[in-house]
């Protein structure tokens, strides 16, 4: 693949480009299906069975079952689509974002109140903090 990708050296960040979109197509469309109340109910009743209706990879299904958003993203998920899972679970966007950082909910909220994560040391992969 010869897409020019100047964005692979940003730490802790996955850019949702055409390659990721192709990989994550069914995962993201599954998420989209959760915008309908009846689908949310069916998913909640039996997550595995609902996921099996979608041509997703086993890793993608497991990542959803585990609510491992970082893994979902590495498998082609996009945060705006994945947010539909959070909405189904009754989670706020802040809870979802925090869950990817390795911090507790409180730690993340406190960090945000204090001005958020600094960009210093967070611009380039491997950069010294």
């Amino acid at each position, binding site marked *: 693949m010869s897409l020019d990708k100047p964005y692979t050296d940003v730490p802790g960040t996955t850019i949702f480009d055409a390659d990721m979109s192709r990989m994550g197509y069914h995962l993201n469309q599954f998420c989209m299906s959760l915008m309908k109340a009846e689908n949310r109910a069916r998913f909640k009743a039996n997550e595995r069975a609902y996921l099996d209706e979608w041509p997703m990879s086993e890793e993608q299904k497991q990542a959803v079952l585990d609510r491992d958003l970082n893994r979902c993203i590495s498998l082609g998920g996009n945060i705006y689509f994945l*947010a*539909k899972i959070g909405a189904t679970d009754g989670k706020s*966007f802040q809870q979802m974002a925090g869950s*990817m950082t390795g911090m507790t909910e409180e730690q*993340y909220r406190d960090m945000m109140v204090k001005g958020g*994560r600094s960009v210093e040391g967070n611009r380039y992969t491997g950069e010294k903090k």
Partner: protein
Amino acid sequence: MAQISASVFTSHVPAIGAALDLGKTGEDYWKPVFAGYDFAKQWEKEQKPDVVFLVFNDHATAFSLDMIPTFAIGTAAEYQPADEGWGPRPVPKVIGHPKLAAHIAQSVIQDDFDLTIVNKMDVDHGLTVPLSLVFGQVDAWPCPVIPFAVNVVQYPVPSGRRCFMLGKAIRKAIESYDEPLNVQIWGTGGMSHQLQGPRAGLINREWDNAFLDKLINDPDGLSKVPHIDYVREAGSEGIELVMWLIARGAMSDVNETKKGNAPTVRHRFYHVPASNTAVGHLILENN
């Protein structure tokens, strides 16, 4: 002829919508956010725009991966607030301006911008939160709105430069419409935020404020900033800021053929945080 009187810029955080809709605006956490919009509410009452041309992005609501338009203009008569998974926001439906929208579409497509024309679209927080912040909690929005959706979700998103040039084409289109309408153009989204991965929560106060400075004083230079700078400095979702360049490009001081004066900065506001995001807000009046 129709005229663009002002541009309004604001972030569009979903949690702001939730705070409004759940009556949390008086909480200490939210008070400073809403205070930043007191000016806008009063100002809009005096301005009485006839139409708002509202540049925003959809967040996997109206547009799934089945169809991803780079630029989509709404030419419908009305738009319903979307159910984003928490139920639709309890805000008025959005009334469109099909005639002006169709006119702009025609003009801008003939100027080589390859728009998608949309006649059916539910609008998510990207559009309704700015309306709530600027017009307040009302029974009906005070004027029709033309929704203009920009893809900032799947790369490649349009460049800042492309957005800026599009703004100029929109200005030309609006000014060639033969009814005397007072039109505002709004740019929404941003400022710095990242909603994904271990770097989630990134905020860059300095970069955001430099962005506001350049948006006011050097939009042409700002339009040349590449995507990677937004991502690296303002977080992956900070890329939404390219949309502000569309609104800025529609101001008359950057019109090459009939150059106006620099706009008046009527209001400027910056606050951290609202949920995961830095909130920026700016009002520029055309001169």
